[in-house]
């Protein structure tokens, strides 16, 4: 039995590609296909992580909760696109997570209506229904901001993910839908729908870090240098994503399965570089009361707690 194990191990060692001793990190990511969650994929394709002696294994999830849970359990080291409120909630309960960077400051989400609908701008939505994904999500905060900032009488309605929302809009179950690019750009081009508003139309959203990068506390303590190196590579990847290199658009288009023109529009029209730059968590002062209202945390976090929770890594 033992001999067999050795044999198998030897065979595996021989079969494996020449062993290069890269540091490995595991990460969960929400929303596969979004520009902001494609950083690791694109950076890896360009060999940036390899250059830093890193190997990243990514697992895609269907939501912020599922992204966070494995981080807390320690089965992955990093979590991407975790809702800021969710991260705060977990921390407040004593869960071993720390915010190590911003994932999205402001949002690229946009709201749209059917082309045949009379709704052209947010002002026209009075008395109509307007979609957000689920309770407690960032899209709900944005819709609430739309309504309060513009004094609208529109009715918010939970419609789930962009696919379900598009169907709801096209079958008149809801008047204004939401989507996150590149989703829906094809329909916009085809003239089926038109954009009514962008998330950044809500003043409050522009300065809010709505999604963050989290790390398991244990992993952070033991492999601080690896994680710092990772964040360095992450920043380099973002720099590369906004460079003139046409390869990045090609890779992204292939990753998501859209034409390159659409891929380029996603970056140029919806995602300013500042949106995905990880160095600063913004808008804590407006996020905190919201977290309390939505029952994510029982009371606001103290400054001491905040400085323990937020530990930006690898910032120059």
């Amino acid at each position, binding site marked *: 039995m033992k001999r067999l194990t050795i044999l198998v191990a030897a065979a595996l060692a021989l079969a494996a590609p020449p062993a290069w001793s890269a540091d490995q990190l595991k990460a969960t990511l929400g929303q596969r296909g979004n520009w902001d969650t494609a950083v690791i994929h694109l950076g890896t394709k360009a060999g940036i992580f390899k250059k830093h002696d890193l190997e990243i294994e990514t697992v895609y999830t269907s*939501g*912020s*909760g599922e992204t*966070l*849970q494995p981080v*807390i*359990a*320690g089965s992955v080291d990093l979590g991407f696109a975790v*809702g800021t409120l*969710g991260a705060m*909630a*977990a921390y407040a*309960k*004593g*869960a*071993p997570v720390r915010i190590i960077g911003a994932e999205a400051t402001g949002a690229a989400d946009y709201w749209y209506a059917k082309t045949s609908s009379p709704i052209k701008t947010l002002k026209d939505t009075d008395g109509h229904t307007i979609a957000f994904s*689920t*309770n*407690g999500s960032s899209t709900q905060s944005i819709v609430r901001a739309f309504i309060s900032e513009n004094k609208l009488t529109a009715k918010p309605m*939970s*419609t*789930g993910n962009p*696919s*379900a929302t598009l*169907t*709801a809009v096209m*079958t008149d*179950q809801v008047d204004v839908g939401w989507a996150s690019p590149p989703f829906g750009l094809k329909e916009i081009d085809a003239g089926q729908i038109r954009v009514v508003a962008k998330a950044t139309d809500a003043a409050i959203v522009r300065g809010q870090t709505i999604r963050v990068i989290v790390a398991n506390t244990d992993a952070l303590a033991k492999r601080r240098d690896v994680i710092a190196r990772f964040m360095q590579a992450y920043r380099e990847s973002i720099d590369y994503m906004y460079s003139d290199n046409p390869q990045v658009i090609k890779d992204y288009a292939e990753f998501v399965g859209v034409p390159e023109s659409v891929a380029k529009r996603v970056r140029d029209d919806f995602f300013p570089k500042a949106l995905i730059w990880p160095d600063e968590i913004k808008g804590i002062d407006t996020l905190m009361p919201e977290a309390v209202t*939505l*029952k*994510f945390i029982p009371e606001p976090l103290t400054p001491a707690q905040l400085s323990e929770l937020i530990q930006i890594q690898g910032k120059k």
Partner: protein
Amino acid sequence: MTGRATRTFVPFALGFGTLVLFTLALEALIRAGLVNRFIVPLPSQIAGAFGRVIAEEDIPHRFLVTARESLWAALLLALFGIGFGVLLYRVRLLREATETWVAALASAPTVLMYPLFLVIFGRSETTIIMMGFVAGVPAVILKTIEGLAGTRRVLIDVGRSFKLSEVQLFWKILLPAALPTIFVGLRLGMIFALINIVGVEFLINFGGLGQLINDLAERYDLPGTYAAICFVILVSVVFFFLTDRIERWLRPVA
């Protein structure tokens, strides 16, 4: 008398005792740090969360939503499931052609069609009800056929000897004889429906108790999440008891 009492009490005590012991052991293990308390909350915390979840998360309402969906699904199951079963039993050709299909459908992972239902019915209670219905209907159809076809020949002959019409024969002999089996099918179908209803609520984050679990998990309210899971189990317990009683009442005395 005392013999009967001990006969029911001893197993109950053993089962319940084990459950209590298991809970206590879990509490001890978590307190000792052997099980990660950020993964499994203390059972005492879960118990404490019950009151809070009931009060703050509108459990009665959510319960009603899930119950309403289940009721609709049950209605559709009874109507179409038994209806199709009777139809297939009466039209022999149709039965020969489709019975194996229905059986195959019973084993197919219909819940995976939830995106399809979402796109057809929207993110609404209708989707959830229809998912429950689709999951449960093959069992009802199959058991209805089984019950009708399993009616003892001699009972039908008795009916004929009394010169009952086809319609009378169906209502007076076939249906009563098949009822216990049909109910078994209805119960089975309802179990599948219930699984799918709560499951889809959880998956699409909409509706009653299933959504609550998702919501609480998203907020990282672990004791609350577990308390909500306990509520769902409670629903299945209630359901089990109710249907078990009805089934016993329907079953002919052996």
